[in-house]
């Protein structure tokens, strides 16, 4: 459903990637890995409209995503989290879903089971990191995504936390959603993804 066709991007004269091709099918869970500076985050930014590629096409179904604003793409169901946890420091977690209260109540079971409920009345600075990461995923899920990009979701996790997080993803992310986990660690994607891709400097995407 999401398709990159010969996409190229360079920053300040340095080629991040050229001729990048891939297709992401509905319900596919993919891990995307690669070294520093190979453009993992840039790929997410292009897919979600925060950056424009220099060349190539990005299509979601029959819709071209090029030229669409990030909010338009988000409304089409392409959602993401951020490498640095993007939660407002001055709001308690409960106020950070940005969906009508009814929707929170409808999904209360999920929120409770994922261990966030106890933290709903706390500020982000009062919560442990895994809770915040789960919170970001939950927030994206409540906004009914069709494709979800997770940028470095397990950075800073210990082994146990990583396993718990993978269990959380498997349990609560519906299998109809296409999930792309972008990390340089491979443990998480080995646990949850069916497929993995590798990005290398100046090379086409490699399916592994």
């Amino acid at each position, binding site marked *: 459903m999401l398709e990159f066709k010969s996409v190229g991007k360079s920053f300040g004269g340095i080629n991040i990637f050229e001729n990048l091709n891939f297709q992401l099918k509905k319900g596919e869970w993919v891990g995307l890995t690669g070294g520093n500076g190979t453009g993992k985050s840039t790929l997410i*930014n292009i897919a979600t409209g925060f*950056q424009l590629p220099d060349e190539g096409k990005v299509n979601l179904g029959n819709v071209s995503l090029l030229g669409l604003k990030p909010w338009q793409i988000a409304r089409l169901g392409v959602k993401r989290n951020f490498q640095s946890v993007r939660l407002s420091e001055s709001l308690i977690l409960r106020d950070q879903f940005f969906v009508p209260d009814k929707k929170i109540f409808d999904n209360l079971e999920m929120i409770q089971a994922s261990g966030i409920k106890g933290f709903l009345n706390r500020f982000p600075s009062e919560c442990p990191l895994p809770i915040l990461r789960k919170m970001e995923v939950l927030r994206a899920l409540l906004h009914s995504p069709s494709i979800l990009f997770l940028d470095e979701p397990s950075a800073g996790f210990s082994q146990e936390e990583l396993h718990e997080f993978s269990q959380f993803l498997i349990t609560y992310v519906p299998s109809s959603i296409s999930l792309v986990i972008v990390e340089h660690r491979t443990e998480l994607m080995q646990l949850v993804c069916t497929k993995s891709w590798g990005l290398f400097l100046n090379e086409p995407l490699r399916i592994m």
Partner: protein
Amino acid sequence: MEFLQTCIDGLLFGSAYSLLALSFSLLFGVMKRINLAFGSTLLLSAVFSLWIDSLFSIGIFGIFFLMIASSALINIYVEKLCFYPHSGKYGATVSMISSFAIWMQLDEMSSFLLPDRTASFPSFLPDSFFLKDLFIRIDQLFLFLIAVFMTSIFFYVLYKTNYGLLLRGVSFDGELAKKLGVNSGKISSFAFAFSGIFGAIAAFLILSTESQVTPFFGFWCTLKGLVAMMLGGIGSLPGAIIGGLFLGLVESNVINYLGAEYRDICTYLILLFILVVKPGGIMGSALLRDERAASERI
């Protein structure tokens, strides 16, 4: 001929705007912050020097040097109170408001030292001469020449001295400078002091050309400096010079052809127009682009 005369007047006076805009740009370039207390610092230093002069009659040169010293000190006070404590995402707004508050404070102190509202300021070379048909005031010409001289010193300090080098380093990439161990706090104090010294010289020249100081001088300096800087292009030093000269040209022509009461309206209309059409100012939009690039890095 009349047009030429107007333009010469405009350029001569515009050079003062350029000096003010340069002082502004220096701080904006390094700190990426706006110091609204800039003008009132100059006013207070002028009024304070006059007050000391009235007590000890230190003479015109005494006033000159005292203004420079006090302005540098007041600027460091402003930096420590309004800029040093605020960093981070909202730091720019908070320190701008904070510097505004200090503006109020400094202005009020000035009016304590200046109970008569206006005071005469010592001036020199009040003569004028005619170059063919062109009327030229010597003090304005002097102002212009000093402005050119000061600008060269400004560029010398910035481009030929070690502190200037570090200043530019910090202004281009403060994070990197920190990684190299540059003490950015010290550099920012230096930038404030330098901008204070530079502004004080500009203020001295302007005041002695006008031969009086009024309580509105601080506001006037801040506003003209800001507008000239925005016209030229934020953060660009050549832009600040051009912006100042351009502002002087526009103002003198408007006064001549439309009348003095239209002067400021036209200035602001041009500012609004430039902001809407070409927000980076006359000299390109380097900074605007940088800001965007920074916000795109997610």
